[in-house]
């Protein structure tokens, strides 16, 4: 394959993978884990009153699109982002940029990307990937979720980029502008951690961060009483899907975050971050136990109950709380 100078990056998550790829193809070193940490991607959100595909929203990551932007701002790298109202103009602009050999990140609806395994294609409008170049009958794309570069037809591309609904991509393209170099890594890491710690500990709304986890724990207790059995199980399995299925590197980004802390501690020669990394890893292991328990409930295997799953979550919430407090006291 005649890809000039483009290196595909196989990653756990779409947005962090794209961010890392865009940086590295401009000659700047930024791993997926570092982009998650600097872009403050770690998160927790549970919204009981808004349902997507029948399930209440649970998210382990920050709002789509923010990771790349924050990475650029904190590392003092110039970037451009363009959205379009008109799909014809948007497609033309994409082709034009590709002709100028710009490596582009785009936002798409994952449902229309036929190279993704069928069971992972839903109407989710904020899937990020990279377009490398235009080919005769479509585009060569580098999707971080797959090991190899893939091909996407022109009609799927247009449908994916201009799909409507919540988080509509509006043909978003983004790229790093001109020649840049990374500066102020230490400060960027500090800012990234600070935002995450603040958000998780001191959220003004009780659906975010530690408070969100506790709210979810209370909800889990209520589900078997309030809902019919099938729906209760579906709600719980949806939480696990958000934690494991959607490309989180395992345990809802907690392992990647441990990787970020580990890498930063080496780069900045900071033993506190190394200690934090080990704490986060232990938390991630607990999330895996939580997932295993929850699925047992869903499949009606063994004697695990909804209450026990809720207790486990509460335990993890306390553990995460002391983790953020540790960072707050010793690092910030």
């Amino acid at each position: 394959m005649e890809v000039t100078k483009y290196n595909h990056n196989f990653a756990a998550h779409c947005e962090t993978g794209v961010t890392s790829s865009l940086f590295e193809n401009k000659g700047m070193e930024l791993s997926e884990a570092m982009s998650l940490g600097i872009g403050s991607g770690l998160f927790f959100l549970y919204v009981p009153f808004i349902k997507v595909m029948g399930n209440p929203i649970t998210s382990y990551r920050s709002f789509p699109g923010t990771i790349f932007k924050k990475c650029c701002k904190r590392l003092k790298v110039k970037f451009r982002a363009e959205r379009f109202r008109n799909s014809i103009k948007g497609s033309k602009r994409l082709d034009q940029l590709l002709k100028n050999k710009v490596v582009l990140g785009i936002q798409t609806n994952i449902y229309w990307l036929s190279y993704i395994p069928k069971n992972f294609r839903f109407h989710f409008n904020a899937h990020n990937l990279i377009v490398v170049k235009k080919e005769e009958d479509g585009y060569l794309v580098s999707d971080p979720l797959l090991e190899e570069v893939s091909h996407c037809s022109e009609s799927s591309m247009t449908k994916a980029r201009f799909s409507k609904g919540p988080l509509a991509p509006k043909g978003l393209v983004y790229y790093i502008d001109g020649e840049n170099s990374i500066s102020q890594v230490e400060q960027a890491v500090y800012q990234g951690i600070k935002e995450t710690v603040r958000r998780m500990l001191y959220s003004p709304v009780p659906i975010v961060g530690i408070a969100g986890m506790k709210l979810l724990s209370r909800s889990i207790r209520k589900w078997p009483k309030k809902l019919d059995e099938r729906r209760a199980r579906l709600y719980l399995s949806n939480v696990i899907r958000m934690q494991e299925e959607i490309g989180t590197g395992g345990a809802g980004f907690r392992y990647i975050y441990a990787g970020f802390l580990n890498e930063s501690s080496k780069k900045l020669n900071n033993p506190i971050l190394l200690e934090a990394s080990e704490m986060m890893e232990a938390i991630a292991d607990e999330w895996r136990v939580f997932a295993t328990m929850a699925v047992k409930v869903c499949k009606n295997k063994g004697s695990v109950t909804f209450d026990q799953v809720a207790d486990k979550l509460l335990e993890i919430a306390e553990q995460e709380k002391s983790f953020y407090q540790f960072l707050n006291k010793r690092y910030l």
Partner: protein
Amino acid sequence: MKVKDVPQDQNESYEGHSKIRYAKSEDGSIVKVKSSGWKVEEDATSLAWDDIHENLKSVYFKVEANELSPLAYRMEEALLTADLLAQNLGYWTFTVKRHLKPKVFNGLNEKKLMKYCDYFEITLEELKTLPKDLPWK
């Protein structure tokens, strides 16, 4: 989790691809590891799909009984709601909901039907009929 503990449970949903999980290597750094699946994740995925197929089945029988138009089946199959479908086609939601009624659907002209066909990437014939190979079998 250590590198050697990364699950390799051959999840069929991955269709031969693998997924990256992070784990701790021997030298203490946290690295990317290819994983072919984790049973726990697979179970959660299959629960969701069982539910989708359950809904699709009930729509199928309603279409067969002429309570809903075949469009309802295609919509459900594409994991859409009337609201989302309407937004994507530039219709009002109530227009799409009207088209779900067999009587209204049968009276639609070809131009309107083609709009749905283009979106779902199916032929006119396919839009008007129920498919033969069903996903839940």
